[in-house]
């Protein structure tokens, strides 16, 4: 069981370094879905870019 958990942690570490940054990536994608569903399908792409860039700004300045 513990051995399995260790592997799970390895996989988690492969993708996540700063959990807040990863959470903000999901927020960016959720906002994109809402904007795209509202009909602004091109603006949704811009939302992903802006939120991801702002999240990187937030994560690195508060390190």
């Amino acid at each position, binding site marked *: 069981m513990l051995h399995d958990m260790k592997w799970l942690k390895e996989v988690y570490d492969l993708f996540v370094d700063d959990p807040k940054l*990863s959470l903000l*990536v999901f927020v960016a994608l959720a906002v994109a879905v809402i904007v795209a569903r509202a009909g602004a399908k091109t603006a*949704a792409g811009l939302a992903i870019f802006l939120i*991801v860039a702002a999240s990187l700004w937030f994560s*690195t300045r508060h390190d």
Partner: protein
Amino acid sequence: MDWYVLVAAFLASSVEFVEALTIVLAVGTVEGYRPALRGTFLAVIVLAALTAVLGVGVLHYIPINILRGIIGVLLLLFGVKWLRKAILRFAGKKALHDEAQAFEREVGKLKQNQGNKFAAQATAFNGVFLEGLEVVVIVLTMGSAARAYPSAIIGSAIGLAFVLSAGLALKAPLSRVPENVMKFVVGIMLTSFGSFWAGESLGVVWPGHEASILILIVGYLAATWLIVSSIRRRDAARHEVA
């Protein structure tokens, strides 16, 4: 041939294999090259098998739209992780990766346990396997989402051949490879691809379709340059006050 995928796979595999080479050379220096090469060979076999099994399974059993969504999210997470580290390195908040120092550290650790050939082989295996795992993720994600497995595999194979031949010729850690710049470029590419594929699967319409990847690359480059310079300016101002 998908050149975006080939370049990203080449750069990512080169930086990861440079780090793996440092560990293998350290094992070779302390315990001889037989356990070092045995560990390396086993790790390469396991990584190749993992890529083949997961690659075939992923492409055959998961519909491409769902696949691009999942892979887009994973690539985006993977990309921002690399990019964050690169920003911190270039802003002077995290030490730049130095292969010569990493080699000395590894040799020091191995000398504490000298004479244990099995432990040396396991160290080489772990080093190559763990560094190679990131290459497998990139080959699998970019290869399957862009339907460009050959480009991803060729890119990473060129990276492996380049690092191996340089390592064999020099028999020293490749400290002159611009590893930090390469990691920065890979971070930008993975984040751009991730944004594109994750967005596309969520209903985003990208203007110019795949041409948007280039716009995203330029956009993320500009954003990271702004972040790095703002952190440097802030830290310089703090030093002046102090």
